[in-house]
């Protein structure tokens, strides 16, 4: 299953300059793992040592914050869109 991951500008320098990537995976965790495999440097930027996402990283599947879904275990459908964004905006 392939998912379109949208990469924020702040991370594009460590993602080969790409704004998007097609990654295989059935859950958010699997897609992130696939993304980190392709762009190793991305991992240290947004994930903690224990593999969880840093607290200022938001991930959305089809526009919904994964914390309202099943977190990293949230299933992603084939062709879905997954967006990574900084959490420090607004207010």
């Amino acid at each position, binding site marked *: 299953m392939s998912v379109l991951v*949208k990469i*924020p*500008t*702040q*991370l594009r*320098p460590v993602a080969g300059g790409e704004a998007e990537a097609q990654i295989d995976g059935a859950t958010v965790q699997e897609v992130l793992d696939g993304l980190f495999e392709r762009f190793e440097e991305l991992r240290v*930027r*947004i994930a903690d040592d224990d593999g969880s996402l*840093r*607290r*200022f*990283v*938001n991930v*959305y599947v089809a*526009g919904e*914050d994964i*914390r*309202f879904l099943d977190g990293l275990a949230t299933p992603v459908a084939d062709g879905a869109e997954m*967006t990574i*964004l*900084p*959490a*420090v*905006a*607004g*207010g």
Partner: protein
Amino acid sequence: MAVSHLECKECKAQYPLEALYVCEQCFGPLQVAYDHTRLGHDVGELRRRIQGGPQNIWRYADFLPLAGGPPGPSGRLASRVGLPAGCTPLIRADRLAARLGLREVWVKNDAANPTHSFKDRVVSVAVTRARELGFQTIACASTGNLANSVAAHGAALGLDSYVFIPADLEEQKILATGVYGTNLVGVKGNYDDVNRLCTELCAERDWAFVNINMRPYYAEGSKTLAFEIAEQLGWELPDRCVVPIASGSLFTKIARGFEEWGELGLIEGTPPRMNGAQAQGCSPVASAFAAGHDVCRPVKPSTIAKSLAIGNPADGPYALDLARRTGGSVDAVSDEEIRAGIKLLAETTGVFTETAGGVTTAVLAKLAARGDIDPDERVVLVITGEGLKTLDAVRGSFETHTIEPSVESFQAGVPEPLTV
């Protein structure tokens, strides 16, 4: 000027003073760093310098992130360009204090700003910095008050503006935005949806989103509330501040303002206890405080306090840390308590606030009732917005005596004043 660079609040990585808001190393938020050594150590001279400034936030330009100093010509008549914000009244509220069993309560009425909310402070700073950086278009994601302010500042300064709001916002806030001739965009979703959309758009457009890519500068504007409170109290600190929390930026930056002036010797004493106020229908920070967590779990807002309806607060962790560090708290109140808070403030001070001010007043009442406040404390209640913007909250809360135009009808239909 004293502004030095941007730095990551988490990992302390440094960045130039550009339209940046996220650390590329760890994704943490960026904040403005200063070098105040050029201000010297003569506190009296520094105070006179502030007092000799204009009657608006630019009197604090030494502590704001502008490379070129305050906008406009120099001197005491300076900075009457754009929409000068600040220098709002600090009112001694003895009748409110008496009602709550307290001794000394002050109301900082920030509804007395050009577009009737504290947002004019942050927008003035963000937009002035945006002009320094050469932006032609300003934008924001807003719960309403920011929308008013960004649209008005765009009009005053001749900049194009785009204002994104949840489509179901109060009518008064929509009308008081569109009138300035902005590009008003109603998004079908809540504020957090609007914020996510704008964060995405921010990467695609060469615009200054005041609360996204300009957020480090924008947030600094809130410090001027602390500066004014201290100056208006005769260069003294309050013992406690009660402040509403939406994203947590205002709450944390007011404390930062007191700390910064304390470090410079402009004020002395212990920084105030900081009490945050949220509505129960959107209380991610209050819930995390009560549960002892150091991060907030996002919520879907459902409250009449729409200007505080941010379910995913960017500065939540810092707000929690501040409340705990100063011996304060973060409390939440119901919609019914919010309406009662609006009435309480109006009936005891003559200040008519919007729902966010109802939240703040209701939390003060709650703290007083709970015995959290020593009666000898000097408490400042920060009122951030205007009641005329959320009229529905008071509809049906009082009776109008409708009579015939005759003395007999008046005597029959209207009660005499209560005499003590």
